[in-house]
């Protein structure tokens, strides 16, 4: 005869008043998977949450944003880490799998455009100049093709892998929907390789997450971006207040609404949103404005399902997260 087992449901009765003190009594498993860009943040939160709730087993995978959404839509995981908003087809798959989700932005990832420190001529770049360098139909061969007074030295480009969220975001901003990014670039999935590439070539230009620039400040030079309102360098300040535009992208977690009813998941998300600003900065990303965290907290509490990044017709809504996310 099987022994009777204590039902987790017993804890559910307490869930209404789950505060910091009773997280210690929480039990259960929380499964998270998705973007490896978001992973360090979720890892930091889960690490701290383990101290607050020692009996909750949190596991975090790194299948990538797309892979994570696939498992999320099949109901295999409770939370999906995503380095971009959910796409239309992913939203539809989730709907067929009867997975309702709550969308929560958690951080900014600034994109830094960097050059070699020996490059003395580039003082700033505008989005149009970036288009001249990166678009397939213009594909500037030398720096002179970008701005007439610059030397006729060949441009060497280092780019993250075309499957990565970083590349996706850069493509969306620079190339938009109709155009494409040139293919004659040195591509690597490992951003550290890009750092070494730009470090070793005077005529190189590359782009990747700000954290990689911050760690290699002595070897690289960051290019201020002029978006019509003067040149802006990516810093925590300029990314958070939105002046470093358009190269900062929001990072998200998506929570299965049914999972969110479980007390341990609810406690984890409350913990996540409360500690995100501090932990996000610690692992090298930029915190969102307080208003966005407040909106996320409100949406989670009210269980608002769906995404703000797709309109009623399923078309993509673009714009800064501060305006789009409500």
């Amino acid at each position, binding site marked *: 005869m099987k022994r009777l087992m204590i039902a987790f449901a*017993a804890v559910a009765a307490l869930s209404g008043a789950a505060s910091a003190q009773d997280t210690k009594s929480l039990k259960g498993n929380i499964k998270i998977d998705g973007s490896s860009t978001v992973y360090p943040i*979720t890892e930091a939160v889960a690490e701290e949450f383990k101290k607050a709730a020692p009996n909750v087993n949190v596991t975090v*995978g790194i*299948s990538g944003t797309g892979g994570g959404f696939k498992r999320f839509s099949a*109901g295999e995981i409770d939370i999906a880490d995503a380095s971009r908003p959910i796409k239309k087809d992913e939203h539809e798959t989730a709907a067929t799998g009867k997975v309702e989700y709550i969308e929560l932005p958690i951080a900014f990832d600034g994109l830094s455009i960097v050059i070699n420190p020996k490059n003395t001529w580039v003082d700033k770049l505008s989005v149009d100049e970036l288009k001249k360098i990166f678009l397939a139909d213009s594909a500037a061969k030398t720096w002179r093709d970008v701005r007439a007074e610059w030397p006729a030295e060949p441009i060497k480009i280092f780019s993250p892998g075309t499957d990565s969220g970083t590349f996706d975001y850069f493509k969306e901003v620079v190339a938009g929907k109709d155009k494409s990014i040139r293919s004659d670039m040195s591509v690597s999935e490992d951003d550290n390789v890009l750092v070494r590439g730009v470090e070793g070539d005077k005529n190189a230009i590359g782009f990747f997450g700000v954290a990689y620039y911050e760690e290699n400040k002595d070897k690289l030079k960051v290019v201020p971006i002029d978006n019509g309102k003067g040149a802006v360098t990516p810093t925590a300040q300029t990314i958070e207040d939105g002046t470093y535009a358009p190269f900062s992208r929001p990072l998200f977690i998506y929570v299965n609404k049914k999972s969110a009813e479980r007390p341990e998941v609810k406690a984890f998300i409350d913990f996540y949103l409360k500690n995100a600003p501090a932990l996000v900065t610690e692992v090298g990303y930029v915190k969102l404005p307080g208003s966005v965290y407040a909106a996320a907290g409100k949406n989670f509490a009210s269980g608002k399902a769906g995404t703000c990044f797709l309109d009623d017709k399923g078309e993509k809504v673009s714009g800064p997260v501060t305006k789009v996310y409500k």
Partner: protein
Amino acid sequence: MSAGLPASTGMLPGGQPPASSRDDLRRRRNRRLKNQVFLVVCIGATSISVAVLLLLLGSIVVQGAKYLDLDLLRNFASRKPDEAGIKAALWGSIWLCGICLVVAVPLGICTAIFLEEYKPRGNTGKRMYGFIQLNISNLAGVPSIVYGILGLTVFVRMFGLFGSPNLSVYDEMYRLRLADGRTVLAEIVDIEADPVEAESPVEGTLSIPRAEIVESDRFYARRHTFELRDGRTITGDLSEFTTETITIEVTPELTEQFAPADVAGYRTKNVIEHGEPESFFYLRLPLSGSVLAGGLTLSLVILPILIIASREALRAVPPSLREGAFALGSTRWQMIWRMILPASVPGIMTGTILAISRAIGEAAPLLVIGGILFIMFTPRNMMDDFAALPLQIYNWASRPQAEFHKVAASGIIVLLGVLLVFNAIAIVVRQKFQRPLQ
């Protein structure tokens, strides 16, 4: 040849040493020179590969020395390089390799024995044999990520036969067997309470005294199949049940309602569990992203390598041994067990070493079947989630912080250590079973 030529040249007239003799001298010098050059080339090639290996090991040891201590082995993953440890990944990899050894090695050796020692004679048999051989050679070249996709369908999801592999998102149900012989399917708030309050789709709300429950079986369920008295069968998501009606969502748009009295029987598409999650013998279907699913997937990856290596080892046993054994009247089984296997153990073990080395370094298939990195516990049984060394090392190496690159180097040293231990086991086995051919 060199002895024959001077004899023939001596026959030529004249006191001068014949031209062909000088040719011969030059040819001999040439041959020696070639011999020397080839030796130098071989030594050069060897020392280049050894030098590269030493350089690699040296740089890793230098980089990894800082974080290589017991804390690395004792701690779980952390955002702080000082506290980051490899415990979960290390134990995950050890479990994976253990499962691979237990599953793949016997399978590989048996397959190799079948292919080498029991060659079929008939026409159809020969064609089948050729087909299997072709497949094994091809499978050895298939990228490991393909095995990951196979493992995801077969082991992790088990073709969806048992519902979703995430046990947490689905309703927790109980199957209760009562003293009066009835079986009740129910949702229960607190199974420890007395009486147990149960909500059952078929029986309605029940209040059962604890003493009446003979057996309780917890499972996770979502899809139910109801067989109605009118002969219909309805399968779907059970969305609501009261004493009067049972509502089942057949598709997202369509719902069906019927009375509990109409139900002739019901089945639940559910997860099969045996034992308790904490125990060592806990079993569950589907395997989901468990360490057993990971181990089985890696076994698939290394199976072709093992089969090919074991076949080579069996083939290297001289046929005279087989003929001798047969001549003395032994059966095929006695011949294989007493003669062929002991003689081929060294070769098979070498193949095993290569295969396990491959298994421990594989990241791609694990990424496909689950790819967990952050986990705060080590597997207690084969159904637990796991992390693995190559994934952890790759993640650390691709972080922006230089300190994490050093932790990654320490991780590589640990990985090499584990590999050495597994290889040492294989070598010990080889020494133990090796018998000189008499």
